């Protein structure tokens, strides 16, 4: 009973069902943990009153045997998700104190299933970043530190708050979003499990848009099973999102423990980068060995257009972002910097409201869509995207069930350490993850080991469209072999 926060969702579910503790107790334990961990800057808004009210309500339901699949489970919500009557900012100054009168589809499904909201989680401004340093609320701190060092490390991004909070036991799971790696990279940096579902699996309605054709919501949790439990509630067709797909949501949890015997797992040779740290190389081989030991067959595969993915991504995503962010103009909601003309109002508001990285991407996006440059950049990037998608299709057509890659090219780095002089240095973090978004495929990042300095490293599994189940089965094999990793508490 002393350490309710260290339970997994699956364990808490049992405890709640057997009345070992109440949701209110579970919620209070997490609220206390959040309060004690403010130095991590994971939460940008704590909602204790709402959390307790939700917990009490769900306790009453549980007492009547009416609790849903997530009854009483306290979660954190990335600040990109609109939450009714609760400030939603995408961690941008431009949204100011925006309070939406609506609830995103994904979060409303979580509440429908009985989950409890603890508060809103920090992220890179408009989800643009790989270190959670672009947030207007300041950087999130990774609960992990290098052995024998006090250096503050980033949790990755853009879902840095989600990853940090889950790793530091501040919430049992969190919502996150992934446009180029924003779920999987922070999961890998914090030894949590992150799932980026197939494009169209979760509704985008009510999630502040970054790049519409790439954005996808998914969970971050501490175990593969927990992520599967969350996925079942988050997924589903939504008529309000034309790009969401109308196919049934399977019981993802049932995939946990399913045999992977005979599955063909692709090892893409193009992901073996020059100068890749030996530790990453080793982690990858180990992962392959674990899957082999579980009965899977390892096959070298080729994804020939991989090297074009990152440049193409950094054209497509900013292009869409430049248009998606045009609505933040100071006219209807959020920040307004007064001016004498409408043109000046836009300029003043947007100059004041957007941070450097957002401004950079809006400018890149505007440039690549401009007359005279459209064909050379945007159109070409879309062609590359088609080729990347085809690479994967060809691979899956050969009977490959999933593809195993490292999740990131390195472990977590220090705050302020990367991208200061050259933003591309930061963009390179997404090298293993962007292909998945470009192809619209599901991917999972699972903790698989530590580097020499004791920092967690993750492996990524990429699946066929709408075959998240296979990823959960394989992910659990990795998890079983690698064990679980919890950061020593220092905060």
């Amino acid at each position, binding site marked *: 009973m002393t350490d309710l926060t260290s339970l997994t969702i699956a364990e808490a579910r049992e405890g709640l069902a057997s009345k070992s503790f109440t949701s209110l107790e579970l919620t209070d334990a997490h609220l206390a943990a959040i309060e004690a961990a403010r130095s991590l800057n994971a939460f940008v808004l704590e909602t204790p009153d709402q959390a307790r009210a939700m917990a009490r309500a769900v306790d009453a339901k549980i007492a009547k045997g009416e609790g849903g699949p997530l009854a009483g489970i306290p979660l954190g919500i990335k600040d990109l*998700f*609109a939450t009714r009557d609760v400030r*939603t900012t*995408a961690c941008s100054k431009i*949204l100011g104190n*925006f309070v*939406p*009168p*609506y609830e*995103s589809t994904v979060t409303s499904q979580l509440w429908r299933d009985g989950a409890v909201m603890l508060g809103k989680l920090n992220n890179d401004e408009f989800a643009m970043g790989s270190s959670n340093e672009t947030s207007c609320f300041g950087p999130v701190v990774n609960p992990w530190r290098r052995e024998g060092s006090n250096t503050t490390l980033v949790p990755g991004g853009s879902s840095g708050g989600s990853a940090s909070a889950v790793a530091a036991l501040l919430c049992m799971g969190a919502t996150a979003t992934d446009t180029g790696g924003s779920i999987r990279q922070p999961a890998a940096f914090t030894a949590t499990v992150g799932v980026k579902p197939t494009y169209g699996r979760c509704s*985008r*309605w*009510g*999630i*502040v*848009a970054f*790049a*519409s*054709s790439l954005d996808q919501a998914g969970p971050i949790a501490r175990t593969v099973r927990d992520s599967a439990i969350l996925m079942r509630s988050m997924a589903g067709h939504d*008529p*309000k*999102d*034309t*790009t969401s797909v109308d196919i049934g949501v399977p019981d993802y949890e049932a995939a946990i423990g399913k045999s992977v015997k005979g599955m063909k797992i692709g090892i893409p040779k193009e992901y073996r980068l020059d100068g890749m740290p030996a530790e990453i190389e080793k982690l990858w081989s180990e992962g392959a060995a674990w899957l082999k030991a579980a009965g899977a067959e390892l096959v070298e595969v080729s994804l020939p257009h991989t090297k074009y993915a990152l440049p193409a991504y950094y054209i497509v995503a900013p*292009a*869409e972002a*430049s*248009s998606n*962010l*045009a*609505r933040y*103009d100071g*006219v*209807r*909601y959020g920040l307004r910097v007064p001016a004498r003309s*409408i*043109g000046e109002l*836009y300029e003043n508001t947007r100059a004041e409201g957007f941070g450097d990285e957002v401004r950079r991407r809006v400018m890149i996006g*505007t440039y690549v*869509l*401009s*007359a005279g440059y*459209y064909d050379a950049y*945007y159109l070409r990037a879309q062609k590359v995207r088609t080729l990347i998608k085809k690479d994967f299709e060809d691979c899956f057509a050969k009977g490959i069930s999933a593809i195993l890659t490292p999740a990131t090219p390195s472990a977590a780095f220090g705050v302020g350490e990367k991208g200061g002089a050259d933003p591309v240095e930061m963009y390179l973090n997404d090298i293993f993850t962007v292909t998945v978004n470009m192809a619209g495929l599901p991917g999972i990042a699972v903790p698989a080991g530590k580097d020499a300095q004791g920092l967690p490293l993750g492996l990524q599994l990429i699946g066929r469209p709408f075959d998240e189940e296979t990823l959960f089965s394989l992910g659990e094999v990795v998890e079983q072999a690698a064990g679980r990793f919890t950061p020593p508490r220092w905060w």
Partner: protein
Amino acid sequence: MTVSVKPGKLIKGQTGDWEVVIGMEVHAQVTSKSKLFSGASTEFGGEPNSHVSLVDAAMPGMLPVINEECVKQAVRTGLGLNAKINLRSVFDRKNYFYADSPQGYQISQYKSPVVGEGEIVVELDGGRTATIGIERLHLEQDAGKLLHDQSPTMSYVDLNRCGVALMEIVSKPDIRDAEQAKAYVTKLRSILRYLGTCDGDMEKGSLRADVNVSVRKPGGPLGTRCEIKNMNSINFIGQAIEYEARRQIEIIEDGGTIDQETRLFDPNKGETRSMRSKEEAHDYRYFPDPDLLPLEFTQSYVDELKAKLPELPDQKKARFIESLGLSPYDAGVLVAERESAVFYETVLAGLADKARDGKLAANWVINELFGRLNKEGHGIGDSPVSAAQLAAIVGLIGEGTISGKIAKDLFEIVWTEGGDPRELVEARGMKQVTDLGAIEKVVDDIIAANPDKVAQAKAKPQLAGWFVGQVMKQSGGKANPQAVNDLLKAKLGI
């Protein structure tokens, strides 16, 4: 599709004749209950910002969902324009900043419109026609409205209209003078109204046109065009074209060149003036809207809509000529406005013998009714004489119960007092007298009383008309004129 362009009226300049080349982009507001991508109402005239959904206001995280009714209307319109329907089309974002566009972009169709090439036949003076090619039709969102007169220092935004579906119908540059241009918009508007896909109300802004005008020596290379934006009256379109063509000719003849630019028409001064130059033109940075899937439907969906299309003006006109024997002119007048055609067909439906009286009914609708409506400033919708009443009047003439002359009196009574024409004829004794005995008695009496006139008439048969007048006068106009004539001829021996 190649259309043979009808030459237009040339304009005389100092250096000879000039030809005007005109292309039009007509924005037609789609008739639908809700907006193109949101469930908000499209009703006109609500309190400012009362028909605005979260999507229309571009709140964070909101997504557009296509309104199928609007797609259906666009396809039906395409069919009405004899155009190619594209089974796959794409919505694009047209990016620009303005306070009437909350998203910061308009969702439109750029490279792949829902409707491709088509053509319509337009009616010109003197029974001439011209065929105008349609380049494309695409769906897009309307913008909101800025109110500049509510505050001395600020502008207000009304988003009621924001997101309402528009069809942009682009013509080919096949139009050659103001008359053709006006006829084109008139015909297009008529087709839309027949289809029920746009109410065509130009005063409310439901139908607006951008007019591209250039001039050239007949048969020469195309000149530089200017676009006259946002025309909301057919007459103004004519005036604007006349002015703009002369303006361009004068510039060229004075040795100048035409700048490609956007212009506005000032109806008070009857002039066009520059709004923005080509250099100031926006770079809209079009790209496919990633929030929307391509718009796809099957040929059978199109076929089904085609099967259910109403009869359009051209078909209706042909039918009136063929089956009722109307003159092409009369048929054209009747079908020009959907309401007129509906009125006429309701009159037809009230006739006992359409073959006998159909043509007569057309005369009455066009001459008596339209004439009177125009004179008194009524529309067909608020005509004091209903189609059923007019049918009854026409029927009474056709069957010989009343004469055409009496019918005019009857029409007057129905117009001012109302009532059932048949009962009125009965109650007020307006029936034509066809009883030969009764007429004969009157004829005999008049002949007996006027021996001098009889003598004159025998000498000069044209003078028999005096007797006809007397007989009609004594019978109160009710004597059958044919019977009177026959009797007089016999009695007077002429």
